[in-house]
């Protein structure tokens, strides 16, 4: 079976033969990767995989129930208590950590922007006003982006998932980091190939047939950092994808994906390979 996948994406017949082994967690890394690439873009095989995963998940319920030591309960509850018990009513009245962090971060950015503004005012005396105001605009935008990225990286709940390039030959790498507490995330990438004139990469958050555009970008020397504000997002994505679109972006994505990661195929259904599960365990915690 592995021969069939060398240098190629798996087709439906091959994948249908693998879904049961995948659901049991019995595929090797290469086969599992080929299957993941295929199901990311094939609803029929994804459905078949889902059924198999749900069946496999039931196997866990066949275990004979053993009694856990009572000391274990005490240990776990005590540890949970140390980590933080019920939030007292008075604490609910004060701003949350998220609000505080955002406020502080905004304050920091505002101070930096103000410093650049002062510099612009001083330079204005030398007749460089227009140029420095442009600089101010660019600087504040970059500062805001950096602020978002730092906030995500420094959050206590930061999660990340590696995105898979759809083509086995691609050297492109990308990772999606996010913090649910901060309602923000960002994609970093490298080795992204230059695109033809008039084309851009576009990031999407997806769930089933739904795909919401997040950002468009052109990599600099193959690299990118794309911050994403998800504070207004009121639905739960199942994956993140990147496609190639006309300049300005598209309302609906052009398939196949350039790269992708799915958050939650396996966590609720058992089985799957390790890497996928990692993404997904996170997922459930995803944005």
């Amino acid at each position: 079976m592995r021969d069939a996948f060398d240098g190629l994406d798996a087709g439906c017949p091959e994948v249908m033969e693998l879904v049961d082994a995948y659901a049991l967690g019995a595929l090797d890394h290469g086969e599992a990767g080929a299957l993941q690439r295929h199901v990311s873009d094939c609803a029929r095989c994804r459905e078949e995989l889902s059924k198999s995963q749900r069946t496999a998940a039931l196997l866990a319920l066949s275990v004979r129930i053993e009694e856990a030591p009572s000391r274990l309960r005490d240990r776990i509850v005590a540890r949970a208590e140390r980590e933080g018990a019920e939030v007292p009513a008075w604490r609910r009245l004060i701003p949350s950590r998220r609000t505080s962090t955002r406020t502080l971060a905004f304050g920091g950015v505002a101070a930096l922007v103000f410093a650049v503004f002062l510099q612009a005012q001083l330079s204005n005396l030398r007749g460089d006003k227009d140029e420095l105001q442009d600089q101010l605009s660019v600087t504040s935008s970059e500062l805001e982006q950096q602020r978002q990225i730092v906030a995500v990286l420094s959050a206590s709940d930061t999660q990340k998932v590696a995105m898979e390039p759809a083509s086995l030959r691609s050297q492109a790498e990308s990772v999606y980091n996010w913090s649910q507490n901060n309602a923000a995330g960002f994609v970093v990438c490298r080795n992204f190939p230059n695109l033809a004139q008039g084309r851009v990469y576009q990031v999407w958050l997806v769930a089933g047939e739904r795909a919401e555009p997040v950002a468009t970008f052109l990599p600099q020397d193959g690299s990118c950092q794309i911050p994403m504000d998800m504070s207004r997002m009121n639905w739960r994505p199942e994956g993140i994808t990147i496609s190639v679109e006309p300049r300005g972006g598209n309302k609906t994505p052009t398939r196949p994906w350039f790269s992708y990661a799915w958050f939650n195929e396996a966590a609720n259904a058992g089985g799957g390979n390790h890497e996928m599960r990692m993404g997904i365990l996170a997922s459930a915690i995803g944005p």
Partner: protein
Amino acid sequence: MRRLGCRDLGAFRALYDRYGNLVYSTVLRIVRDAQTAEDMVQEIFLRIWRKPDSYVAQRGRFVTWLTSVSRNRAVDEIRSRGRRFRYETTSPEEQERELPTQEVDDPALRAELADQRRLILAALARIPLEQRQIIELAYFGGLTQQEIAERLCQPLGTVKTRVRLGMQKLRAALAPEVRLEER
């Protein structure tokens, strides 16, 4: 689970009382070591305490999600340790004779799990031994098809065929249960 989001320690205790033995049993079945199992149960429950929204209700029942997470975590553990224990499968008939789900501290849940366990064991019992053995080695032993072939001295093609045939039968037998999960 909603109450856990408010850091309600009482809800966390109730959750453990309801599912602690089930998680412990699932993990113990895979790691085969009581101390390791205890550490992993602690890790799994504290992870839920820290991130209660890691469970998404639309994707299936909580108990199935929890046992799947437990199984996956236990398999990761034995894989990361590279443990070469000899995983022995137990026939469904033997398992049926063993103690049923008496240690779950919730009568309704206990009855439901006992019923479900009987159904799953019955479905497993209808699968030929050589297919069932391979399914169990994969799911509970954390072995890949290649590793199973090496361990059982069987051609890889035979193992793959047995996985497919066994799972087809299991899927057919458990289809009503799977539909319950999809509700």
